[in-house]
């Protein structure tokens, strides 16, 4: 078969399975009072909950202990993340730092950076945002125009990042910037910098989304000074680094669980003895979800084995995002289950509430972390078509 289409399936190891009930007990007692569960990793910013997770050792799980990590496997991390998402726990505060900023610093950062940033992330106290997109740079990431100019002791940054989730309440941003003018290779001359979001020369402006929330932002840098010590990896190596970061960004269960609470509420509304059409929808959604989960666990196995599952991650994310969008649509057309009047549930019914919330966020599912079109391009490359 084609490279990138080989998914070796495996059972989760016992050590990982053992964590499952522990996480469930934790969520049952620590879920903030009155919090409306949402399986979307981007919803629910709770520093208090993140700190508690940190003290359980469930952030930075795979990192070395000397940086505050737990030296656990990717499978153990997988179980913790999927349990938190399925329960709809508020995880957005630490999510990016745990998923990709930490691993990026671990792989490319200096010893000083690791010691400075990783323990705080692992404690659930230090939160990071992604600094990739710009007003004129979305999918074409190599076209970033934010510049970092070499000055005594560091870099002077000018430019704008956009769609920066939680920049108004996170601590740092890892920005992809141009440190050399473009040459024949568009991928040359890019670098990554850790920028303090509360520092001088950084202005964060909220952007309201279609759901009425303003959890993403525009971040403007005006002569923002970044110390030499906050350059991540080698100057000019930004492209390689940012692509490896995307491997972590694309592979997890958050790529097919965003709409999961809609499924839960539909099963609840359908009751223990559903009509055949309702049962068939439940079974259909489950067959997709169980299959995606097998594929995603297989990718966790590749990360554990140290291989680079770029194509597999893109394929699972693309398939998973399509499913996250299909789920609320199919449920909506089948609701209310049972085929009884009233033909529509009241807006405060948990299923209706979940449906509305998910539908309003659904356009982002196939945009964030790489658009559907970009991901399908990665898969096409895996098929040898480009």
């Amino acid at each position, binding site marked *: *078969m*084609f490279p990138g*289409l080989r*998914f070796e*399936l495996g*059972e989760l190891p016992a050590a990982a*399975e053992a964590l*499952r009930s522990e996480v469930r007990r934790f969520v049952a007692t620590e879920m903030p009072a009155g919090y409306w569960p949402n399986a979307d990793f981007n919803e629910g910013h709770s520093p208090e909950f993140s700190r508690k997770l940190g003290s359980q050792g469930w952030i930075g799980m795979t990192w070395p202990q000397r940086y505050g990590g737990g030296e656990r496997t990717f499978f153990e991390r997988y179980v913790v993340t*999927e*349990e938190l998402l*399925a*329960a709809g726990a508020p995880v957005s505060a630490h999510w990016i730092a745990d998923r990709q900023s930490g691993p990026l610093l671990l792989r490319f950062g200096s010893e000083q950076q690791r010691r400075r940033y990783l323990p705080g992330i692992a404690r659930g106290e230090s939160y990071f945002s992604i600094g990739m997109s710009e007003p004129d740079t979305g999918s074409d990431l190599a076209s970033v125009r934010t510049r970092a100019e070499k000055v005594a002791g560091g870099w002077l940054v000018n430019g704008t990042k956009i769609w920066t989730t939680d920049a108004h309440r996170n601590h740092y941003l890892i920005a992809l910037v141009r440190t050399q003018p473009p040459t024949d290779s568009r991928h040359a001359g890019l670098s990554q910098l850790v920028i303090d979001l509360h520092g001088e020369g950084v202005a964060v402006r909220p952007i309201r989304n279609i759901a009425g929330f303003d959890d993403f932002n525009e971040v403007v840098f005006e002569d923002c000074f970044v110390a030499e010590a906050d350059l991540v990896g080698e100057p000019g190596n930004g492209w390689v680094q940012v692509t490896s970061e995307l491997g972590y960004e694309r592979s997890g269960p958050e790529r097919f669980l965003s709409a*999961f609470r809609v*499924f*839960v*509420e539909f*099963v*609840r509304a*359908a*009751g*223990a*003895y*559903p009509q*055949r059409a*309702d*049962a*068939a*929808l*439940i*079974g*259909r959604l*489950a*067959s*997709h*979800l*169980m*299959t*995606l*989960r*097998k*594929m995603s666990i*297989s990718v966790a196995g590749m990360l554990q084995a140290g291989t680079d599952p770029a194509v597999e991650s893109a*394929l699972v994310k*693309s*398939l998973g995002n399509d499913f996250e969008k299909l789920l609320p649509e199919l449920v909506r057309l089948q609701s209310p289950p049972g085929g009884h009047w009233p033909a529509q549930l009241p807006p405060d019914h948990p299923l209706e509430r979940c449906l509305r919330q998910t539908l309003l966020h659904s356009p982002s599912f196939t945009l964030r972390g790489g658009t559907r*079109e970009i*991901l*399908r*391009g990665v*898969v*096409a490359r*895996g*098929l*040898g*078509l*480009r």
Partner: protein
Amino acid sequence: MDALIEDTAERIFSDRIDKAMLERAETTLPGTIGEFPAALWETVRDAGLHLVGSPDTGTDYGDLFGLLKVAGRHAVPLPLAEILLANAVTGDGEAGAITTIAAADNVAPWARAADRVLTIDGELAREFAVEPGANLAGEARDRVVVQNPVRIAAPDRLHERLALSRAALTAGALERILAYAVAYATERRQFGRPIAKFQAVQNSLAVLAGEVAAAVCACDGAVAAVESALPGPRQTDEIAVAKARCGEAAGIAAEIAHQVHGAMGFTHEHGLHHFTRRVWAWRDEYGRERQWQAELGQRIAANGADNLWDFIARGHGTA
């Protein structure tokens, strides 16, 4: 599965099966009736492949369904799934007889060429009347009336294993369909370049690849559940996932593969239809997607909404 079995099967099927054989074996063209490829069967039997998965052979259900996946890649025109499962059930395949299986509707693949018919509820007959028929792929699906059957021990979970056989055949055939589509898109030139260079075509092929990968994973998951003898309800659930997901993938994949092939793939002369018609046919055999989805959905609903995630993550009856 065992690599030696896979290699042997791959070699025999690629060497012995060509388009002419597939056409002769199918009941597709008007006035023709599918002819059993006896020479192919003898080769398969001489290599011992008909005993894969049978007791005391050192092979298991993982090998059996793995072999069917390989068979799907080559559209093997034999009732291989039925022979393997019947031999595994009766344990007397050494004699080399062709034993097919009649489902609840009394339809048995290739009964016209069979020595024995095993019924789904465990009757074995050497005498049976046959009325030839075919599925939409032109594969022999004969109606049988068994005479003087002998009751053997009730076969364990035979219906769901037959369903899984169709998922495995489908997963293999889908791999072949993807290979066909990628090869064609790379060779076929329009507007001065291979059509594979157009983003619209790449996009379609990426969707096709996703469906194929999902089908293979769904199938492999169910095979692993059977192979490692998970509790009965979990096997049933995993097989339901596999049959339903492979069936959905089959429809999407066949549609895209034909679109990429243009009118060329719509001709009888092209090889693609031997695979696309089979996956269309197999998704209807031993329970359509909706049947398996509804049964799975009923078990999930009975488990309760608050246990939905546990069902997804750990399956039925393990809490």
